[in-house]
């Protein structure tokens, strides 16, 4: 008898953890944490920890909802075919209820124990990712990841709101860094995985507008990204250490994007695109890590530690 029909599940706890997209979650935790640390307010460390945990669970919940809705397309893409729902270990209904319960729990916890602005932003992020991006944009427009990227860019804003109870220009700058980073990051992936997206019928830029247009778009985004990356220093909420590293990382990003732009149509190995994809991960991690280091150094320096 089929396990899913009889209700006899073979899903382990690990399968449910995989529904939370742990690798995406780690980036969310990290950027939310930097947003929380960078904010000019000190939260009780226990409450800060709880805020980060709630944001992480909320992000995981949106991942589970995404895997519930996208099981059909995940099944035909090599990168995602072994996910718990398409591989049959977790039923679609289980993924849906898991996602809904964790969404409610994380938003309520953040609201009750931290503040309701942060909770509202988390709820909006989950809604935006699961409904606006997954259910609507992903299958209908090549601008899917541009607009959907807003969901991935919100965690530092939530972290900042958790600490201060407000949304500020500084937190919007952090939002813009991730927002502008998302399209070139995913389009670099889409370039060398375009066959996958084509098979799944997802309108990614390379198979809708063509590779040449995608390369131009990637390069076009890399320049404002490098510029916005400098904004925390220019606005004065990060110091020269951040400014120098952000300039170097931004220049690196533009350089890798330029290599993708120059990549000949005949190049099927697409090494520049793979390198840009790898560098983009390093870029985002580096920007937020150095911002955190810079702010902590100046804060400890100022208080005489």
């Amino acid at each position: 008898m089929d396990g899913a029909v009889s209700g006899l599940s073979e899903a382990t706890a690990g399968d449910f953890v995989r529904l939370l997209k742990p690798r995406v979650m780690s980036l969310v935790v990290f950027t939310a944490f930097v947003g929380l640390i960078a904010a000019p307010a000190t939260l009780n460390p226990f409450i800060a920890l709880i805020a980060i945990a709630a944001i992480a669970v909320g992000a995981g919940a949106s991942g589970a909802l995404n895997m519930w809705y996208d099981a059909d397309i995940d099944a035909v893409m090599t990168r995602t075919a072994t996910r718990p729902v398409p591989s049959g270990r977790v039923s679609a209904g289980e993924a849906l209820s898991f996602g809904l319960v964790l969404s409610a729990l994380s938003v309520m916890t953040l609201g009750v124990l931290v503040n309701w602005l942060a909770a509202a932003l988390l709820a909006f992020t989950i809604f935006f990712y699961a409904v606006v991006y997954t259910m609507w944009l992903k299958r209908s427009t090549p601008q899917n990841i541009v607009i959907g990227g807003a969901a991935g860019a919100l965690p530092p804003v939530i972290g900042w709101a958790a600490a201060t109870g407000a949304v500020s220009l500084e937190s919007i700058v952090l939002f813009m860094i991730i927002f502008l980073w998302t399209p070139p990051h995913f389009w670099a992936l889409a370039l060398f995985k375009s066959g996958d997206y084509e098979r799944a019928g997802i309108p990614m830029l390379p198979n809708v507008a063509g590779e040449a247009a995608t390369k131009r778009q990637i390069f076009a985004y890399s320049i404002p990204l490098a510029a916005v990356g400098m904004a925390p220093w220019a606005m004065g909420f990060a110091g020269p250490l951040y400014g120098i590293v952000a300039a170097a990382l931004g220049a690196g990003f533009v350089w890798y994007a330029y290599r993708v732009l120059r990549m000949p149509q005949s190049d099927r190995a697409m090494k520049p695109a793979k390198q840009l994809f790898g560098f983009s991960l390093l870029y985002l991690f580096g920007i937020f890590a150095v911002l955190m280091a810079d702010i902590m150094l100046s804060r400890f320096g100022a208080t005489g530690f």
Partner: protein
Amino acid sequence: MAEQDFVTLTEKQKKARRSRSIAIGIALAVMVVIFYVATIAKFGPAILDRPM
């Protein structure tokens, strides 16, 4: 009288169920700790500061 329809779990299903049960147990325990710690943190030092 109709025979009772027993369901026998396979070893794999038993192992999976045990793994899920432990995870749910841990998750509940973590929730309890979170709300306990948050309550204490929100009370603050003022909790010790009351007339007897």
